[in-house]
């Protein structure tokens, strides 16, 4: 079996395990992604969460690095992650999880510029923030562990190891996905393709998955409700309709994308039909508003590269609509704020690049994840590079400080306003080839995975079972087919408890002619052992001309009584039937014994006068019980209340020891314990021949066989080596 060593305790876990069975540390197994909305783990191949149907950001990572500012839908996709933090947050002054979720909700209400930053980058960034948040929280909880509730105690597997693991993997994925030489870009694309088969190699998808996993773990690591906060109810999440979700699950893959939107990473299901309410509102803006915007806009050339086109939310809509989506009020407002910024950001001062910063922090490694082809495009043409904000420089300010090759968002957004920047550029053949390859990748259907872990393990002990069961069957077959076996086993058969059985017999005979109450407290399950006793008792009572009243605390018991009474000839039977309420029901019945005048009805049923009379005259109560509770109910509720009545019991062999104290204290005047006692009562005391007695020999041999198996087994394992612990204390009882 393939095993995965736990990074924390190096315990060898099954490859199927996502957490260390020993210490609970996450093992980050490939192929699963955690839903940002409900934090349920879902096979990566699925595009939507199986539980809440939210779009799984990590399921289609390729579309994210390609998001253009106009891609409103992707803004939403990114927003569905509770970890999408607004740009004004920096790792230095971290908010608590509550703040983050609030920010998140805001980021859904208004289109935040950062949502056009590649989501995988956000996720990684957010993951790192959440890591430090959770570490903070961990410290707090540690300090207050004395007073905290056990719930908060229990959500503390050593999660920090997860992040170390994450960072370790980021390093490797960096090594793989950041080819030093532009020529290696093909390799990088190969890596992406390989990832569809869930290879172990690090790549963007892997990275995004790890980031999401780590981030959501971090979120769940926060004690109390904050860590588990659901997205606010009023937040429209991008979700397909239920039927579409299920259909998609059946297909197990991404739908072919809208030809205009394909490279923009906007799956069709996120198009206008699926847009959240607030976005639909934007689409239905009055024309005059649109005019205002169109005044300043020069539409881009139709000749430009497909992948640079703005997202079109609906196949029917033209590019203009696409632009309209970009330039909504909130966006405009935001842009205004930008222009008010006192210090102009780097991108405004063209050509001027920031000084290099040595690759140290985690974020540097994150930044290094920028796809190589983007760099190539940048090398190919300055305008596009400017448009996309890709420069071979390391950011020295803002939230991507120290990140190399981070996509500058502001110029990208501004570009959609300043149309001239988008007009004249051309695409080299090389780029077109890359586009073609990229298109093919986007269209590659991920292989649907089944969670292997839920496959039930094999049942390994069939042979042992067949051997033991076969042996038992043969024994009984032998005993049934060869009745003479009863003869030579006569002296060795099951030994009846003669004393108790004789007392039972005496009480039965003493009650001759008097009404006797027989309680059937067993279901057909135990009929095999108790029916023989019931038959003997009812038969003898019929012979004694004792009126018999049958009663039961269970509905099945009263049916069993009826079935047995059918076969007894000359039985004066009155059925009281089912007594609901167990102990209390029996108490009420006991009152009928002691106070017959106030017993016209019992549990809503009218009691005939004759039956009332018989109840008051009952001198013997026979309890036929298969479980201790109902037996004890009778002893305590009826036996204790009705002083002048005698209790005897017919029970299974199992209950034998339970009745010992009650017999000793005289609460039970006699017991017949199981089949052997029944045979003894019938044959030896009542002198009635019972063919069933031959079965005793079969049972005896079966018991010997079982004991033989146990002894043989014990000897075998003793010989093969019995490594006893020094003290058995720790072991089972």
């Amino acid at each position, binding site marked *: 079996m393939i095993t995965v060593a736990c990074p924390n305790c190096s315990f060898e876990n099954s490859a199927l395990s996502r957490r260390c069975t020993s210490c609970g540390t996450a093992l980050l197994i490939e192929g699963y992604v955690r839903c940002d909305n409900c934090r349920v783990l879902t096979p990566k191949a699925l595009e939507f969460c199986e539980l809440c149907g939210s779009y799984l950001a990590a399921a289609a990572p390729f579309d994210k690095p390609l998001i253009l500012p106009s891609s409103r839908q992707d803004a939403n996709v990114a927003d569905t992650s509770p970890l999408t933090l607004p740009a004004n947050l920096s790792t230095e002054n971290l908010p608590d999880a509550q703040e983050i979720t609030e920010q998140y909700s805001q980021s859904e209400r208004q289109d935040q510029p950062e949502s056009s930053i590649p989501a995988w980058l956000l996720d990684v960034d957010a993951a790192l923030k959440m890591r430090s948040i959770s570490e903070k929280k961990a410290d707090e909880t540690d300090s207050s562990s004395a007073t905290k509730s056990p719930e908060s105690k229990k959500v503390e597997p050593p999660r920090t190891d997860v992040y170390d693991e994450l960072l370790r993997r980021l390093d490797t994925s960096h090594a793989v996905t950041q080819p030093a030489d532009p020529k290696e870009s093909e390799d990088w694309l190969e890596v992406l393709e390989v990832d569809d088969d869930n290879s172990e190699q690090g790549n963007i998808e892997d990275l995004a998955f790890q980031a999401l996993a780590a981030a959501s773990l971090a979120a769940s690591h926060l004690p109390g409700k904050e860590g588990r906060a659901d997205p606010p109810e009023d937040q429209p999440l991008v979700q397909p309709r239920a039927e579409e979700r299920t259909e998609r699950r059946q297909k197990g893959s991404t739908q072919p994308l809208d030809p205009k939107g394909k490279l923009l990473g906007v799956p069709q299901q996120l198009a206008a039909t699926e847009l959240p309410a607030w976005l639909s509102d934007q689409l239905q803006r009055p024309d005059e508003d649109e005019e205002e915007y169109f005044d300043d806009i020069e539409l881009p050339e139709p000749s430009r590269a497909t992948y640079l086109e703005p997202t079109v939310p609906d196949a029917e809509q033209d590019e203009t609509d696409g632009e309209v989506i970009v330039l909504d009020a909130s966006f405009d407002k935001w842009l205004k704020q930008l222009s008010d910024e006192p210090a102009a950001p780097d991108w405004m001062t063209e050509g001027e690049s920031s000084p290099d910063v040595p690759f140290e922090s985690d974020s540097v490694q994150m930044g290094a994840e920028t796809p190589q082809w983007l760099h190539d495009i940048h090398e190919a043409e300055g305008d596009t590079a400017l448009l996309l904000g890709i420069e071979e420089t390391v950011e020295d300010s803002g939230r991507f400080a120290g990140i190399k090759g981070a996509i500058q968002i502001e110029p990208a957004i501004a570009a959609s306003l300043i149309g001239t920047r988008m007009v004249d550029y051309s695409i080299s053949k090389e780029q077109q080839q890359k586009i073609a390859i990229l298109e093919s990748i986007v269209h590659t259907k991920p292989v649907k995975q089944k969670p292997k872990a839920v496959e039930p393990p094999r049942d390994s002990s069939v042979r042992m079972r067949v051997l033991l069961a076969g042996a038992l069957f043969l024994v009984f077959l032998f005993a049934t087919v060869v009745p003479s076996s009863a003869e030579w086993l006569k002296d060795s058969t099951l030994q009846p408890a003669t004393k108790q059985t004789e007392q039972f017999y005496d009480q039965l005979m003493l009650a001759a002619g008097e009404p006797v109450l027989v309680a059937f407290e067993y279901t057909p399950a135990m009929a095999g052992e108790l029916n023989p006793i019931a038959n003997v008792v009812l038969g003898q009572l019929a012979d004694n001309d004792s009126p018999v009243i049958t009663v039961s605390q269970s509905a099945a018991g009263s049916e069993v009584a009826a079935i047995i009474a059918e076969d007894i000839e000359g039985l004066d039977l009155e059925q009281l039937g089912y007594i609901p309420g167990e102990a209390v029901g029996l108490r009420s019945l006991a009152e009928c014994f002691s106070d017959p005048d106030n017993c016209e009805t019992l549990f809503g049923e009218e009691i005939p006068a004759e039956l009332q009379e018989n109840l008051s005259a009952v001198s013997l109560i026979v309890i036929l019980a298969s479980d201790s509770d109902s037996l004890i109910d009778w002893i305590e509720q009826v036996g204790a209340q009705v002083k002048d009545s005698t209790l005897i019991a017919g029970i299974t062999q199992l209950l034998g020891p339970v009745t010992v104290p009650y017999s000793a204290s005289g609460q039970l005047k006699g017991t017949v314990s199981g089949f052997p006692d029944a045979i003894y009562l019938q044959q030896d005391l009542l002198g009635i021949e019972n063919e069933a007695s031959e079965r005793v020999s079969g049972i005896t041999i079966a018991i010997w066989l079982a004991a033989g198996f*146990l002894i043989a087994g014990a000897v075998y394992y003793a010989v093969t080596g019995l490594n006893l612990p020094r003290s058995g204390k720790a072991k089972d009882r």
Partner: protein
Amino acid sequence: MNQIRQSLPLALAYVFGALALIGLLFVPALAKTITGWVGFLAVIALLIGILNLFSVHSRRLVRGNIYSGVLVVSLVAMIGLGITDFIELTDGGVSAAFKYVQAPLEAAFASMLAFFLLFAGVRVIQRRRSWWAIIFITSLVIFLLGRTSLPGFLGEILGTVSDIMTLVFVSSGMRGILIGIALGAIAVSIRVLMGTDRPYNK
């Protein structure tokens, strides 16, 4: 409103708990009435449970689960027989179904336990290598053989040892466990009656 949601059940729990306690100890008539009411509620709960069983398996049946189909059909058939018995279209239909279907099935399941107990015994030997397992298996073998009297001297010894063990150890063990259970039950019941545990206010 939320406060009513929480406090109303608690108040009812206090009142009915106290009444039931007094009734059970001193006023049987009161106990009979209250437990009758609760029995009625338990029956409603049972019917709701059966409704749940029906709905769960109907859904599975719709998804093509044939076993759930069998369950739903048998459930409906049994209830149908109950109705036809009640309106005297059939006579003893429910009893017949019980006698020929439920009784044999229950008996079969119960008798099958013999195999499983034997398997369990053998597994204890296979897997547990502790003093307690040895004590368990040794006493089990003594009890089993003691029930039958093996021919000869060995039989007598085993019989006597088994009887003594039953009288002394089994009685004490059972007694101790039963008393412990009673103590636990007292503690839990009192917590509920005091309102410290409120499983009804989840």
